[in-house]
């Protein structure tokens, strides 16, 4: 059964079939004759059966040829009429006619699209793939908001960043900060406790953050002129506890390629960034560290392709008059 299937798949014929055909046609080779004779010894009825087929072939060969009683010569008018009567759709329909190799194309496209949609859905459920794309904006907003919300408390006096910490961002930051609060056991108003809480929450986040996150953090750290940076330098927490926190954070962000350029003046902001990144991580990585894909967009497009292929297939069948 499997052998027959493989033979059919690769266009090969069973040697027995070759031998029997050749025997009936009277042009069997020595090996084929040997094989057929062996088969006839095993099954005596086969000899008469093959003789019948030989006689049948003789009768078929005696069937006279058919002559066309008219000429099929063509004229320019015939060709022009054929050209004009064939629309683009009918040409397409002919192209995908069942006996042609492209006949299965709509089915293959539909199957592929449906399978991909199913795999994406399964991947989404199991966390192998995650939605990406449009979440990037919300990610940055929440991160910036968390920076603005967390940085003043780390710095004790607070760093005023009106260009970033607008009301929207601040309101967005509240849920993020609140979401972290149960873990750290602090409130947003408790600046001293936040130092420890942020330390606990931010450091792993920074350690896990990919280099590009750190690069973008650097980019935000490098804003402003030298005076502003110097001013920030004055805001560095001076007590030993906060210095320890800063040291730990510095240690945590060591893997980043450009973390050496982070000055102590940026640490307060860095802590906030860490908090923001942690909040964002909670939003995106909560479902698992899967491959980020524009899931729903892909699913919609693939489903549309599948529907279009089915529609095209049905339409072409209709055009062909089936």
């Amino acid at each position, binding site marked *: 059964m499997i052998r027959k299937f493989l033979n059919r798949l690769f*266009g090969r014929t069973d040697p027995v079939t070759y031998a029997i055909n050749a025997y009936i046609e009277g042009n069997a080779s020595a090996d084929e004759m040997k094989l057929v004779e062996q088969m006839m010894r095993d099954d005596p009825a086969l000899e008469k059966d093959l003789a019948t087929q030989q006689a049948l072939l003789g009768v078929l060969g005696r*069937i006279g040829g058919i002559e066309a009683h008219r000429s099929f010569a063509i004229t320019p008018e015939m060709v022009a009429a054929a050209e004009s009567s064939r629309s683009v759709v009918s040409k397409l329909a*002919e192209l995908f006619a069942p*006996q042609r190799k492209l006949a299965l194309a709509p089915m293959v496209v539909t199957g592929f699209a449906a399978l991909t949609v199913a795999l994406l859905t399964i991947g989404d459920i199991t966390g192998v793939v995650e939605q990406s794309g449009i979440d990037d904006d919300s990610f940055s907003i929440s991160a910036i908001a968390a920076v603005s919300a967390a940085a003043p408390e780390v710095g004790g006096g607070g760093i005023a960043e009106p260009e970033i910490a607008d009301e929207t961002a601040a309101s967005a930051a509240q849920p993020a900060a609140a979401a972290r609060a149960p873990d750290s056991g602090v409130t947003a108003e408790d600046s001293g406790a936040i130092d420890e809480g942020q330390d606990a929450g931010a450091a792993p986040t920074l350690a896990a953050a990919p280099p590009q996150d750190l690069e973008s953090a650097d980019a935000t750290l490098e804003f402003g002129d030298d005076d502003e940076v110097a001013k920030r330098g004055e805001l560095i927490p001076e007590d030993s506890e906060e210095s320890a926190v800063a040291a730990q954070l510095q240690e945590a962000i060591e893997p980043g390629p450009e973390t050496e350029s982070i000055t102590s003046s940026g640490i307060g902001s860095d802590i906030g960034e860490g908090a923001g990144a942690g909040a964002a991580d909670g939003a995106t990585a909560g479902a698992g560290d899967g491959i980020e894909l524009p899931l729903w967009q892909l699913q919609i497009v693939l489903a549309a392709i599948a529907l279009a292929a089915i529609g095209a297939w049905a339409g072409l069948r209709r055009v062909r008059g089936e």
Partner: protein
Amino acid sequence: MTNFDEERFIQLTRDGDYDAFNRIVAEYQDAVFAVVLRTVRNRAAAEDITQDAFISAFRKIASYRGGVFRAWLFRIAKNASLDYLRKMSRRPETSIDEDIVYFSETVRDDSADPLADALNAELARLIEDCLGGLSDDHRLAMVMVDVEGYQYDETADSIGVSIGTIKSRINRARARMRDCVQQQPELLPASMRL
């Protein structure tokens, strides 16, 4: 056949020469028509299909990229024939049996015996019926190889399948034909009776 320079006529046809193409038509029209008629078993339909096949061949001549030209023509005619049969099979109100083309007077026998002639005509009708009972693919293969006498490779090229597939189809078609004709043993020559 001696004056038939196929390559030259094909080249002229590519340049839009209708006369050159009509020389090709004259050369192959009987062969194409015979295969189409024995496949679709309806003379009017076979004439339309053959005509359309030649028009289509003229329009598509640019896509002919060498090989046996007759096989290329057969492929076009085969596709048109199968399209027709598929349409007919989906229209139960239309019966192709209404205009069956029998192989009457076509089983050649040199004997002058009227009884033998009558038996041959009956046998031809039986064979036609049995051929009609085969699947389209099997019938096409059997008509080309066993009736028209084309080689396996040209038949495979014409139908667009491998030689192995053709041999397999021929093998099955012969077995089914044998079973079919055995149902009326009185019409068969002694050599065909089991």
